[in-house]
């Protein structure tokens, strides 16, 4: 195992960077260099300096504090959407694999339907019904995640259910849900973890997108996408305000993708580089 990890320097890098950002986000819960609501027009558009490592934005808020807090929003939205997606999608996928027939047909058609609607349309629908906000971004991304996890779970479960020990369990009289729970789920867990890593990056990207078009996080809360939105009109004059959150989004997403790729290689060598994460939007 040790050698396997060593053979993937990219994985180490990706995981390290992902954890670093996640920790930075968590840290913002208890400490930021400056309070993020601390507005002071007098010190706006400051360039990076020892006082403000990443400078200040158009309201004089500390950019580093904003990025820390924005990262937390991104991870929270992405992770909650995964819990929704996996929580509903995995049982659906397992049910499709073990029952087959009409159940499978229903799950597959539902997946097709959900894939046919770009998540952005779901988000607009939800925002129209409930007003814009981070919670709505979570729901929209979560709904998008359901069929992704359902398909991964079904695919993995189908491969495993042809193995002898599953047949043995069936002969021993185990019910189908029991087989799914005891034999299939533990064996597809690695697949789901890999997919979750990828969906986390997709979710973070989608959250940034929703906030950028005004459907996601609303001020005075902050998120990386919202920072981009605020900085957009100022891009020609103060490009740094766009570059800092833009870079943060890019680095987080790349780190998560590298980590996801590496994890796949290690946890499930049979599926090496076969399935690539789908992109929301």
């Amino acid at each position, binding site marked *: 195992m040790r050698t396997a990890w060593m053979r993937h320097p990219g994985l180490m890098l990706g995981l390290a960077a992902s954890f670093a950002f996640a920790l930075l986000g968590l840290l913002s819960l208890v400490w930021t260099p400056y309070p993020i609501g601390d*507005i002071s027009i*007098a010190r706006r558009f400051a360039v990076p300096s020892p006082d403000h490592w990443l400078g200040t934005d158009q309201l004089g808020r500390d950019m580093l504090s904003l990025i820390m807090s924005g990262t937390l929003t991104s991870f929270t939205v992405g992770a909650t959407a995964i819990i929704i997606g996996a929580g509903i999608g995995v049982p659906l996928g397992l049910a499709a694999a073990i029952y087959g027939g009409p159940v499978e047909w229903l799950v597959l058609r539902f997946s097709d339907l959900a894939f046919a609607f770009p998540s952005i349309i779901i988000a607009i629908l939800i925002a129209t019904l409930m*007003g814009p906000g981070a919670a709505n971004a979570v729901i929209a991304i979560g709904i998008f995640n359901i069929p992704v996890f359902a398909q991964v779970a079904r695919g993995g479960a189908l491969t495993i259910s042809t193995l002898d020990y599953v047949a043995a369990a069936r002969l021993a009289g185990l019910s189908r849900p029991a087989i799914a729970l005891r034999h299939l789920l533990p064996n597809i867990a690695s697949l789901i973890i890999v997919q979750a890593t990828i969906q986390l990056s997709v979710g973070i990207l989608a959250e940034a997108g929703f906030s950028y078009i*005004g459907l996601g996080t609303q001020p005075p809360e902050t998120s990386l996408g919202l920072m981009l939105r605020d900085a957009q009109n100022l891009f020609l004059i103060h490009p740094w305000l766009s570059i800092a959150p833009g870079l943060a989004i890019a680095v987080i997403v790349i780190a998560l993708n590298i980590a996801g790729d590496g994890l796949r290689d290690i946890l499930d060598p049979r599926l090496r580089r076969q399935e690539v994460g789908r992109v929301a939007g």
Partner: protein
Amino acid sequence: MRVTKSLALASAGLLLATSLAMAQSTEIRVGAPLEPPALDPTAGAAEAIDVVVYQNVFEGLTRIDQNGAVQSGLASEWTISEDGLTYDFKLHDGVTFHDGTSFDAEDVKFTFDRILAENSVNAQKALYEAIESVTVVDPLTVEIKLSRPDGLFLFNIGRGDAVIVAPESAENNATQPIGTGPFAFVQWDRGSRVILEQYGPYWGEKPALTKATYVFISDMATMTNALLAGDVDGTYNFSAEALPVFENNPQFKVLVGTTEGETILSTNNAKEPFNKLEVRQAMAHAINRQEIIDGATYGYGVPIGSHFAPHNPYYIDLTNTYPFDLDKAKELLAQAGYPDGFSATLKLPPVNYATVSGQIIASDFAKIGIKLELINMEWAQWLEDVFANKDFDLTIISHVEPFDIGIYANPDYYFGYNNPEFQALNETLNATTDEAKRKELAQEMQTIIAKDAVNGYLFELAQTGVWNAKLDGMWQNAPVEGVVLRDVHWVE
């Protein structure tokens, strides 16, 4: 040889350049952030309608100039009776609508009857309710009788809401506007642009432009690029934060002017704890006006201390009624029975000045213990919740109607201010035509609402236009809504 060749090339280039400039010299492309929902200014409140058609396609009996003064329009002259109740308008002769039909007193009567009709959809019907009757004396004379004197009557009939329409075409003005103005409507490519062309038989002085295209670009970054690339020749109100891109560029000129937009922190005076004067005074002391102006308008807003436009001759400076003083604010809150402050909501419409001002105010109010929850809303929701149902604590909004201090005399208005003394003053003002007396009354009214701290008075919105440096004649100020092309021309 080489020299002559390059000289020839250069002069050919120069020729090309001049001929290009000549070809361009009577056309204009105006960038507008919002596309109008329809094109009939007498049947909709949207500013975007007036931007395209006011004084370009449609004209009224009077017209407002860029300083807010009343000029003659379709009426060449008028007389007002001693009691201020009867107006006699002489109409211009030889005026035709763009469909060729002629304009006369019947059209005027039709227009006002339509505004005042039971089923009228005019957005400002209330402004014309003093009209008792419109009588056609002869084809070029019309007499309007009022039920009460109205000092703003001549101004109000010059607004986009009272432009003269013809009975033959009024029905279709929403999509096929037909007026008497110097420009005739040509086509409307939905989602993209509206094209106007000079109307040959126009009765008045011909404009310098022969063609005008309004290009609708809602995204500020796209607008910036369109301006820089020369895809549009200018825009009448550009987002202040991006103005530095154009300020030092000799190819552009930035016109900073006044508007009628009093931006206020509207307060629900009918609701606890805002019905307490001390609470409102405390909030007024906690408003850092200069910081808000710098943050939300990049310094272009003009501070106001009451609900009145600073460029109006009746204006008095009340910005020091409650200067920024957090200690005083805390003291007043304690007097009102809220030593630890309270929590409230601040509902914000989707406009930049509101979202930014809201964050700054929330940050300052937090320092005196007032915890504001910011709620961002869509326009339709804001209009319903705040404006119609009065379901709000605080909101930030620009009141863009000219001379609209009278809204404080309406106890049913959304901020719920009920002061009989003020209401009496407003009635006296409406019935007074003497300038000096009107000024005195208006100033007294301004002072009352400033002292009562009815709302938080923040700033007067500025109009910041960006235009090609070779364009001249654009309105710098915006006393009424509209982008009037009458005097716009190219200069070399």
